[in-house]
């Protein structure tokens, strides 16, 4: 079974990728990346004769529907600890004006950025090395697979034995969550390079360096970027887990403190704020990915 990849890598013809190679769990595939997109492809929408570029009414309707259901459930009430959406919005505004979010994110974001930065450089390099070298693959692949399937929430508190309760523990948590995704996507991106293209390069007397730089890396770039995007998503989870499980600081402190004093409206506001930030960040990265690697899906 062979399948035409939806996004031909720059510099190559349409890539032909085996489905099985793309279907490894936790690996971003071009198809999976497309499915993960919060936006329906405008091209598809145009073909379907629907709303065309105007997907936003559907997104808005989705938000309104969820918020309305939340509001009703809050007034029902489902629980005293479950405030209606309107109260959460008011609490979010109050916290924003008081500078609570600003102070919290000033603590939460630096370890996240540092962790993603480290994974972005070393993780991609390791993934590429694994894709190019059997020795690296044998050495690192089992470790990455184990990390990917490990119950990280149980491991994160143990980080204090190595790094104490400092920001280093948070960076380590981000790396633990993000590294397997980034490394394995980079590895798969290289390893799934169309063999015909590599053969073609070789037949034109291309050197190994040219095979890598002219064929493999351009071919893998889409998956590497998709891995980085999913790594950022995992990094958000890692930093919040660390702040909840190791030392309540930043946004984790806002969540745990407000829960401890039964200010559930503020607790939900803090949770919604990190969800919103993560969603906006990932949407922007998705757009960038579409623009760079899948121009047929890019939103103008």
């Amino acid at each position: 079974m062979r399948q035409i990849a939806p996004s031909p890598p720059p510099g190559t013809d349409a890539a032909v990728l085996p489905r099985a190679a793309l279907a490894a769990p936790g690996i971003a595939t071009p198809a999976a990346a497309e499915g993960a997109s919060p936006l329906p492809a405008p091209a598809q929408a145009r073909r379907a004769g629907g709303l065309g570029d105007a997907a936003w009414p559907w997104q808005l309707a989705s938000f309104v529907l969820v918020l309305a259901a939340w509001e009703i459930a809050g007034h029902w009430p489902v629980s005293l600890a479950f405030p209606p959406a309107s109260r959460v919005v008011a609490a979010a505004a109050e916290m924003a004006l008081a500078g609570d979010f600003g102070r919290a994110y000033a603590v939460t974001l630096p370890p996240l950025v540092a962790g993603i930065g480290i994974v972005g450089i070393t993780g991609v390099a390791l993934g590429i090395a694994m894709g190019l070298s059997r020795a690296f693959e044998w050495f690192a692949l089992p470790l990455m697979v184990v990390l990917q399937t490990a119950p990280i929430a149980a491991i994160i508190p143990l980080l204090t034995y190595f790094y104490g309760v400092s920001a280093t523990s948070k960076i380590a948590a981000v790396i633990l969550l993000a590294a397997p995704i980034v490394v394995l996507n980079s590895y798969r991106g290289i390893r799934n390079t169309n063999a015909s293209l590599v053969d073609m390069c070789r037949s034109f007397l291309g050197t190994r360096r040219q095979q890598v730089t002219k064929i493999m890396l351009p071919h893998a770039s889409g998956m590497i970027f998709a891995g980085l995007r999913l790594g950022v998503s995992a990094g958000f989870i890692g930093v919040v887990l660390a702040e909840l499980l190791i030392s309540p600081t930043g946004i984790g402190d806002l969540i745990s403190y407000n829960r401890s004093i039964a200010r559930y409206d503020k607790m939900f506001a803090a949770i919604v704020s990190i969800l919103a930030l993560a969603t906006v960040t990932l949407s922007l990265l998705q757009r960038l990915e579409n623009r760079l690697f899948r121009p047929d899906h890019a939103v103008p």
Partner: protein
Amino acid sequence: MPKLGRLARHAALVVALALTGWSDPAAAQRVIRVGQADTLTGHNLPELIGLTNTEKRMGVKFNVVALKSDDVVFQAVINNEIDIGIGDAYKGIDTLKAPVRHFFLLRRVAYFPVVNSEFYKTWKDLDGADMAVHARGSATEAMAVQMEKANGIKFGQISFVPGSEVRIIAMRRGTMKATLLDLPNSRKLTEEDPKKFIVLPVETQSASDEIFYATTKFIADNKPLVQALCEELLKSLRAVNADPKAPARLRQELGLLKDLPKPLADDITPYFELAVPGGLFPTDGGGIAAAKADFGFLIAAGRFKGSVDDYKVEDFWDLGPLNAALAEVDKK
């Protein structure tokens, strides 16, 4: 036809058993769900003894579960997933006007500011210094804030390191220089190296650490049970206060905490020999005096606003079961 006959006989047997009330006695026993934030250790023996004696007396079964934190216990109580919570619900009642009331004080807070004397010798030295406490929203954090106000200082940072045992290790290693520790652990550290570790002076602590609470509906629907529980807890705490060796002895007699590892079992009597003279276990079940002390503590810690007189005891406590239990136990 014979098959039908057998089927009819089996059906008749089932109906007969159902009509005669055949059932598993264990299944018929009513289960009361009790939630608390800590894993059960030998330090919890006073309440376990009280609960066990209440089980025998009232024919119920207490299912004690350990949840992650006090606020999770409170949520479980207001969501009716737990019948009786152990911890405190002051802030939840105040903020949410939750229909929850305390009914028995089990243990008072007793945390002491232990500092590394190579760096700090007085409260003034701690102005701008870091102070490590148990967790966000915990009694130790409230105490740290109270101590800042009482001594006219401001800590540089209040950091959160769960577990007295963990903070002891950090103090020994020198990575932590000031913390709040419970009574046994503070004694352990100061006796280990009295020159290096000292306890700064604190006012007498009378705030509550662990209180039994439940929804108003549960208390109203189970008055005899709640009163019996108060009586048995009173008896248990009085026995512990009269003889700190009693918890270890009663553990054997009642078959409690059978799986407790030997080092923890050996720690039971030394703990109570320290805790009892330290006044950790009140013998009156709390009540009005405890509630007012808690209001004062929460105001000093910045959790409550205004003055003690702004808060009504009956908004936070149901004194009925405790008063009835005190009358009953004192009569005997």
